[in-house]
Structures are given as C-alpha cells and as structure tokens.
C-alpha cells in the first residue's frame, strides 16, 4: 500500500511538472515547408536566450491553423493565407489571427535529374497536374507517362498550387506524399515524376532538377533559385511564408518574431535556402507592430 501511494504521488508530480513546463514553452505548429527553417531559427534563438523554450511540430499548414483556432499552439506556420471560412471559425471562438510574413519562397517545380524537360509555363503545369497532359513527349521530353506527386490536402503548398497554378482540381491519380522531404526522395527515384516543393528543399538535393517556369509562353523563364527573380515577381509562383498568431503579438511570441525578422534571423532564412523578405512584406509586418 505504501509503495502504491508513493507511485501515485510520483505520477502526480510528473503530471504537474510537465504542466508547468508546457505553460512556459512556446508552441509552434503547422507547415511542413517552414518546419526546418523555424526549427533552425528557434535553435539559434534559444542559444541566445537561455531559459526560453520553443517546441515546433509539423503536420501541414491546415493542421497548424486548426491548432491556432483550437488554441493548441501560440504560432501557426502557414505556407498559404488563411481561408475566409478559417478566419470565420477562428473569430467564432474569439481568436483573431494576425498574419506575419517571415520569408519568401519560390515554389519549385522539380523533376528527376535525368529528365530533359527544363522549362514549363504555368499553363502547362496546370494541364500536367489536372491530368490533361499525360506523357512527357507532349512537352518535348522522352516518351514515358508522367507520374504526378503532390502533397496531402492538409498542406498549404497543396492548396496554394491548386489555387495559383491549377485553378481546378488535381488529377485523382496524383500520389499524395507526406511532406517535402518524401517528395524529393520520390522524385529522385522516379524518372517519370514531377512535383513541387519549397525552394529550401531543393538547394541541397542531388538527383532532382528544378524546372524554369514562365508566367505564359511570351514571358521569360525564371528559376526559383534566383533570389532577384523571386523578389521582383518575375518567377511566377513565389509566395510569402507566413506565421499566424492570436491578436497583436506580445511577450515571448513578439520577442521570437522580432528575432526572426531581424537581419540575423533573415540571414538564417537565406542559409536554409529561402529568401529574405522584400520591402513590401517588411512594410506589411509593421502593421502588426513588428
């Protein structure tokens, strides 16, 4: 009996101590595209500020936004903007999402390293992913079927690509992969594959080729690896990577966001393969007091 009661109190103690720890810890959740970047930012931040703790989990932009609405995290990473119905359901439970842009991403279209097709227009990409163009020979490549790889519907990249490029539904034959890293691995292995990932995932990847993309047949083809083209909008599928918080950021949340947007934070953004924020979005963030 004595043993039992000791066990009981021990369990209680563990429960409480973990409760206290999680109360102090900043919870960040969401986009798979942002996870490595924010992880790195948090590591450097925690080194500089001993005692501050940040926990980061992925799951996709949709998952992060759902967590923010359900008050399960402090910051939601999102590679897309929040949808109107998401804002509405957030407001309904008293959450007022504020958007902060933290980095620029040139959403990169990737194919296997042996694929000869090196440039595509946005219109062609739409046809490919809607399942209307099904063979590489139609695009000047080898005679083999196109295998589509994409993200799952909880991904902000999935939604962004659907709205900006497809303007329609994905082919139901598209394989739905669980994150950017898995996509890169799949494209490395599949000579017939095509997919899209955040630019931070292609800079260090061997065996995959980044396709140059043009807005339409008459405009120039640009690479997402070129910072200038991503910043000035020549690359057609560039996007800001966002973080959402509840209300105006204060305290630890504000402290961390300020670090992310500082020159030091933006240098880490570049190290991780993404691009620093252009002036347009720096001004946008000032409205949130950052």
């Amino acid at each position, binding site marked *: 009996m004595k043993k039992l009661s000791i066990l009981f109190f021990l369990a209680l103690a563990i429960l409480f101590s973990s409760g206290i720890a999680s109360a102090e810890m900043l919870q960040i959740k969401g986009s798979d595209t942002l996870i490595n970047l924010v992880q790195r930012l948090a590591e450097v931040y925690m080194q500089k500020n001993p005692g501050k703790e940040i926990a980061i989990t992925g*799951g*996709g932009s*949709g*998952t992060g*936004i*759902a967590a923010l*609405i*359900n008050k399960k995290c402090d910051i939601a990473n999102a590679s897309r903007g929040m949808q109107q*119905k*998401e804002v509405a*359901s957030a407001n309904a439970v008293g959450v007022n999402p504020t958007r902060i842009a933290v980095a620029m991403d040139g959403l990169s279209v990737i194919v296997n390293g042996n694929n000869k097709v090196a440039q595509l227009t946005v219109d062609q990409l739409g046809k490919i992913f809607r399942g209307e163009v099904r063979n590489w020979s139609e695009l000047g490549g080898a005679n*083999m*079927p196109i*295998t589509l790889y994409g993200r*799952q*519907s*909880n991904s902000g990249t*999935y*939604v962004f690509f*659907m*709205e900006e490029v*497809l*303007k*329609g*539904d994905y*082919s*139901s*034959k*598209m*394989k*739905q*992969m*669980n994150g950017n890293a*898995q996509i890169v*691995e*799949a494209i490395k*292995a*599949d*000579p*017939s*594959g095509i997919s899209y990932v955040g630019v931070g995932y292609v800079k260090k990847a061997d065996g995959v080729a980044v396709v140059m993309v043009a807005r339409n047949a008459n405009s120039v083809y640009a690479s997402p690896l070129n910072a200038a083209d991503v910043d000035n909008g020549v690359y057609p599928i560039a996007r800001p990577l966002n973080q959402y918080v509840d209300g105006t950021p204060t305290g630890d949340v504000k402290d961390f966001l300020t670090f992310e947007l500082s020159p030091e934070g933006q240098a880490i953004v570049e190290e991780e393969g993404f691009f620093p924020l252009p002036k347009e979005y720096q001004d946008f963030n000032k409205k949130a007091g950052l």
Partner: protein
Amino acid sequence: MNKRKFQDKLIEYIFMLNGVIVVAALIAIFLLLLKNALPAFKEIRVVEFLFSARWNPTSYYEETYGILAMVVSTFMVTIGALVIAIPLGIGTAAYLSDVASPRVREIAKPVVEILAGIPSVVIGFLGIVLVGPAIAKLTGQYNGLNAINGSVLLAIMALPTIVSLSEDALSSVPKVFGEASLALGANPWQTLLRVKIPAASSGILAACMLGMGRAIGETMTVLMATGNAPAMPAALTDSIRTMTATVAIELGEVAYDTTHYYALFAIGLVLFVITFVINMISDIVLQNYKKKTSY
C-alpha cells in the same frame, strides 16, 4: 468461512466489472462513431457516400464525398496481403510444429513473434526504401508506391499472428490423431496435410481472420507505401488510398463540426461495420466447424 464467502463474491464482482467495462467501451465507441458520423448524411446522400468513387473534400469546385475507391483499395490491399501471408504463414506453422526439431522451434517461434513488435512506421519506411524500388524493377514501373507494395508489407505484419496462432492450433491437435494416421500407413506428409491441418483448421481459420483484422485496420504502413492517390484503382500496380489512410491524413487538419469532419467519422463507422461483420462471419464459421468436428 464468512470472510471467504465475501472474498469469493468480491472477486466475482471484480471479474464481472472487467467484462462490463470492455463491453461498455465497445458500445461507447460505437455510439461515439454514430453520433459523429450521422450528421454527415444531412448534406451527403448515403447512396453517393457509399457508391461514388470521387472523394475530394478540398476541391477547387465542389466538395465530393464518395468512399467507393477507398473501400475497393482497402480490400485490394488486404486480400493481396492474405494471398501472400496465408500460405506462407500456414507453411511456417506446419514446419515449426511438425518438421522442425525442438531446438529450432524454440528459437524460431519467438523470432517470428518478435516480428510483430516492429513498429508500423519502420515497416512503412522499408516499403519506401526497399520493397518499393524492388517492385518497381520487377514490374517495369517507374515507381513502387502501389497496391503490391502495401500488400507485401501488410503480409509481413500479418505473418506473426498467423504463424503463431496456427502453430498453437497444430500443436494442440491430440497426439493420438497423428499416431493413428501413421499407424494406418500414412506417411508424415499425408498425416500433416489430411489429418493434422484439418483437425486444427478452426484455429488456423481464426489465425487468418485475426491476421486479416490486423491488415485491414493498419494505417501508417499503407499511408507511407501506397502513394495515396484517391483515384479508383484498376490494377495492382496502381497507387491506392485506403480508408484508414484517408482518416489519418485528413482528421488532423479538419475544422470541427463541418461536413468533412463528420464524413471522416462516417468512414470510421463503415470500417467498424466491416471489421464487425468479418469477425461475426469467422465466429459463425468457427461455431459450425466445432459442432461438426467436436472430439
């Protein structure tokens, strides 16, 4: 004496309480599923839900909720797994119980059972890096994220259950059965095939059913290895998306109290009904068989 009676009663009640808790948990889960699934049918027609193959709750145009492709995918990968696992499993069980020396059996059986302890993510990872590429090569496809890959992996996961329980069933066949058969002039092979396996068949059937239950409900492995394309599969080399994978992928991001949320619970309900029916059928088969062959 009185104290002893009290103790007996107490223990009786404790056991009864255990039983009641298990049954209550089952009923509670069923009711929870029902409560969360039924609102889906305010906006989705039942016929469309069950017999349409278009599942796209995040569509650019109009949300569609049809689970037929997933049901077909689930059965495709499960049956594929059983086709591989049952012959292999019964063969292994027969070897372990009848052919192997006691020393080999003592080592081999626990090893097979350890296979059951490998986490499903690890098996899924194997599917991505090892089984998938091998299947791609063998079938001349460009990639191996398809139903065959899922079947092979699920077979690996169902094997320990089938081997272990079948071996138990074969070992518990009364010794006299085998001895009588041998005494009548049958060789060991005939004895195994015509006497022991039929005598143990209820146990073997139960083992296969449990293996099937393991395969049909498995989530992580198929999620990682089969590509998850929502299209209706036409061949074993097509990428598939099972019911469990759909729930696992989409439940994390779905907003509470939406049609999509309820529809995911409706998938869970369908899965529950399917496993319930499978268990019931195997129970009835077992009962009938026991009556015929009671000894």
